[in-house]
């Protein structure tokens, strides 16, 4: 049964090689006998080896091959033999010799003299009785040349070794070199196989349109494939893996009923800081953390009403708040920055929100910036996932509820919340998720409920706004097992082609 199955699955190359296996074990002979190219034979042998039909053996051996003169002597005969034949017809002087090349003359005479086959008398060469005897039978050397090459030195008989020694010393008759010799050994399965008919004339290799048209595929077998075999890899077009992750997160927020916010990456400090009750002397507003814009240092403030109420919330506070005190500087608020968080989008959204649209839920996913030296764990661009819930009845437990749900959908069953501090939220929360594989907590970033100093100027009254903005890159890196944060954007095409799809 097994043999039959193997026969059904034989590749045309294998079918061509198998008959030769009955006669030969050596690679070179298999090539000659099958009439295939060496690579084809090798491929077929490897396949057969995988099928446990045979084993391929590689041994280093000393091999003898015919050289240029050797091949020519095989056809024309050895020069000494030809000289002997000529002399057998008539005695000749050296100059009268016809069948030999000039350089062959001396050596031939020498060889024949040694065997007492000729005589030299006053410039005339003549054959002896011994010579005539020699003419009747083939010499060891002649026999040797007629053997099938390549020959292994170790397999020679004594007289062959004698012939080898004689011929080796002569010019370009034989080549002896060390070579890797490939041979095969049939397994018992192989021995069984070679006795079968493997021609497979009725086996279809490839189904063609012609076969379909004329129906010639009927009553024939299809060659059986080894379906477990490895195939060459192909690559397709795809979205960048970071975007795949962001799109997934986006879908989670939309499923939870959130509406997308977008907006510019360059913002005035007014929206990035002041509207979020970040004191004007807060360290985050200093050069080393934030990117400021050299070409266009300042932008415009929005209308006076909102500017005045933000100013008041900073200087004196709003509705029962003390504020930061001091003077609020509107020039500082005009300073352009590359947004340090997507929370500036939330501030703008609250400002533009109509009362009749409440309760409302918004999210944003976007690139933010921080002026930071580049290394394996620091990047000047990062992704944040932002969310706000504007609802007069919202509370702290709801905040934790949304966050827990989001991270659950991101694949983290366990989330932990710790107290934190941000100028614009109260209470403030730090979010950790528990990594199920590494068995440790991952710190992801902040959340909280916007302070009245934020919501009163933007919304007109104190309505609780749940807000969060954890970083997203650590989750992406974790999923793709990326250790160096720079790999997120180094666009190694090999990596882009091979990296798995985001699938959560």
């Amino acid at each position, binding site marked *: 049964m097994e043999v039959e199955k193997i026969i059904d699955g034989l590749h045309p190359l294998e079918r061509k090689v198998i008959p030769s296996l009955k006669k030969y074990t050596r690679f070179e002979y298999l090539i000659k006998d099958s009439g295939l190219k060496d690579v084809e034979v090798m491929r077929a042998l490897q396949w057969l080896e995988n099928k446990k039909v045979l084993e391929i053996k590689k041994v280093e051996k000393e091999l003898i091959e015919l050289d240029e003169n050797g091949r020519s002597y095989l056809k024309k005969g050895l020069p000494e033999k030809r000289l002997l034949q000529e002399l057998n017809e008539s005695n000749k002087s050296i100059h009268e010799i016809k069948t030999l090349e000039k350089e062959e003359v001396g050596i031939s005479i020498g060889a024949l003299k040694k065997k007492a086959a000729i005589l030299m008398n006053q410039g005339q060469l003549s054959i002896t009785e011994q010579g005539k005897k020699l003419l009747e039978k083939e010499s060891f050397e002649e026999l040797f040349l007629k053997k099938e090459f390549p020959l292994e030195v170790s397999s020679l008989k004594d007289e062959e070794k004698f012939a080898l020694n004689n011929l080796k010393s002569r010019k370009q008759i034989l080549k002896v070199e060390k070579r890797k010799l490939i041979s095969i050994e049939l397994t018992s399965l192989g021995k069984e196989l070679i006795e079968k008919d493997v021609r497979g004339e009725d086996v279809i290799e490839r189904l063609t349109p012609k076969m379909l048209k004329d129906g010639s595929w009927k009553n024939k077998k299809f060659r059986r494939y080894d379906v477990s075999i490895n195939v060459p890899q192909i690559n397709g077009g*795809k979205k960048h893996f970071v975007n795949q992750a962001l799109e997934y997160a986006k879908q989670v927020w939309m499923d939870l009923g959130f509406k997308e916010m*977008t907006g510019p990456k*360059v913002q005035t400090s007014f929206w990035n800081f002041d509207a979020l009750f970040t004191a004007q002397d807060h*360290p985050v507003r200093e050069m080393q953390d934030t990117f400021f*814009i050299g070409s266009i240092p300042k932008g415009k403030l929005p209308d006076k009403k909102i500017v005045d109420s933000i100013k008041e919330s900073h200087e004196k506070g709003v509705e029962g708040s003390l504020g930061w005190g001091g003077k609020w500087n509107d020039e500082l608020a005009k300073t352009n920055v590359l947004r340090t968080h997507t929370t500036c989008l939330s501030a703008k959204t609250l400002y533009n929100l109509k009362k009749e649209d409440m*309760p409302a839920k918004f999210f944003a996913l976007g690139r933010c910036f921080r002026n930071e030296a580049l290394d394996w764990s620091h990047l000047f661009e990062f992704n944040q996932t932002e969310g706000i819930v504007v609802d007069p*009845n919202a*509370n702290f437990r709801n905040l934790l509820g949304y966050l827990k749900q989001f991270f659950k959908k991101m694949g983290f069953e366990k989330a932990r919340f710790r107290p934190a501090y941000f100028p614009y939220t109260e209470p403030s929360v730090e979010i950790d998720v528990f990594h199920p594989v590494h068995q440790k907590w991952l710190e992801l970033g902040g959340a909280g409920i916007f302070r009245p100093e934020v919501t009163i100027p933007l919304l007109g009254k104190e309505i609780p706004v749940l807000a969060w903005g954890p970083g997203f890159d650590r989750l992406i890196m974790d999923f793709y097992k990326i250790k160096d944060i720079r790999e997120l*954007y180094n666009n*190694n095409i090999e990596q882009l082609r091979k990296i798995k799809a985001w699938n959560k």
Partner: protein
Amino acid sequence: MPTVTLNKEVFESLVGKKLPIEELKDRISMLGTDLEGIEGNEINVEVFPNRPDMLSEQGFARAFSSFIGEKTGLRKYEIEKSGEKIIIDESVKDVRPFTACAIVKGINFDDEKIKEIIQIQEKLHTTYGRNRKKAAIGVYPLEKINFPVTFFAEDPNKIKFQPLEMQNEITGLQILSKHPAGREFAHLLEGKDKFPFFKDANNKILSMPPIINSHDVGKIGDKTTDVFIECSGFDFGYLKVCLNIIVTALADMNGKIYSLELEMDNQKIITPDLKPVEWELDLEYVNKRLGLELNETELTELLSKMGHDYKDGKVLVPAYRADIMHKVDFIEEVAIAYGYENFVPEIPKVSTIGQEDSFEKFKKKVSEILVGLGLLQTETYHLTNNNDQNVKMSIDLDLIELKSAVNNDYNMLRGWVIPSLMNVLNKNLNKEYPQDIYGVGTTFKKGDSETGIIENDRLAVTLCNEKVNFTSIKQVFDFLMRMLDIEYKIEDTEHLSFIPGRVGRVIVNEKEVAYVGEIHPLVLENWQLVNPVAAFELNLSELFGLIKNE
């Protein structure tokens, strides 16, 4: 955020209880500080900037002890009158108008305690004091001072004294250039006609705030037991809190606090003032914000764990707390005391409709079409440099420059996306071809907007392989436009990044939205590319605007 190092033994004796290490770690984190680690006898914690009162071992232990229920409620500190005076001369008004002062007696300043007071001073300087700008603190051995002390301002050329760590007397102005602390903080006084100084009754200079104390009287040593403390700055309320943080920490070292009388603007004010601050708070507000159902007793207990007293809708807040600005701040106090881990997360049943931004949706569609053609998407930085954007591309765009960017290779905002893709091709020279890639990214240019900068999202496609030409890239472009059902025409144009005669300008509704062409070999050489590149760049923001208006 500042890190504070606590001595575990001292800390435990201040707290009044020794917790197992795991519980200690957990409780520190849940109090609202970041535990950096515990090593041997050292506990390292990060203190959030809203709690400067926790920057000292004493302050931290005080808050922690309440939190774990050991010593709860408002702490009482006794203050005695010292009978001494501080005169605040009106000359300081324009340079550093306020100071708040105190005396603390009876501390044995051993090395440990000297280290501790230096730590408090430094941490307060860098955080709450905003690097000495908003508040600077001076601590002096009391025995070397004769009261009344005067806070005044004078021409810095006229005042000479020997600053700490220097051999000779130099003028106030020289300090700014010659003394290390002077150089570091010079910017706080530079350009002022007069500098602020403290002097004692014998006209001996005590210090030049916020820079340096004098050598004679400005250094506490191991024989010191009594100290004079001043905080100077611009907001009296702010300085009073700063002073309170220090004196309560010293009182927790068994020091005794004495007040001083400040004479200022014909007014007499006593500092320090440790009278608790009264706030109104109603239970309903707390319950509504937190989603809890606490009663008055529970609220009282929770607030006492944060060091406050509560009774009948009134909270008494310790005078060293700098962070209570609004009654909302008690919400967090209660939440921390209740324990964040004890809240049950809950998603309310509020129905809202999820919605994707329409332009984002459009970009997603564009991406899908290109992926269908077998293109690979790249994601590149918005930050780049002039060399990549202009020089290598043989053009001269007016780019938006960043101020003081840490990385010189990333000090501009990109004006177009093709150079970002050229950079990707350059980084992938040894990878298999064809390399057909695209990227969608924000570009920046000057224009009329809130910030004076206009941002557009643009799509760039580059095809790179041996056989690429104008036809190949136009085919991709054409396919995209047909799939989006947008009619366009291409006109002959010139663009120095492309081969002359092989670059077209794409017009939709009479607006230019794209360039399509073969990249110039000079540009390829600049990027060390060995295969031809055909590319297009399409302004998706504009295109979307055009088709949306149709």
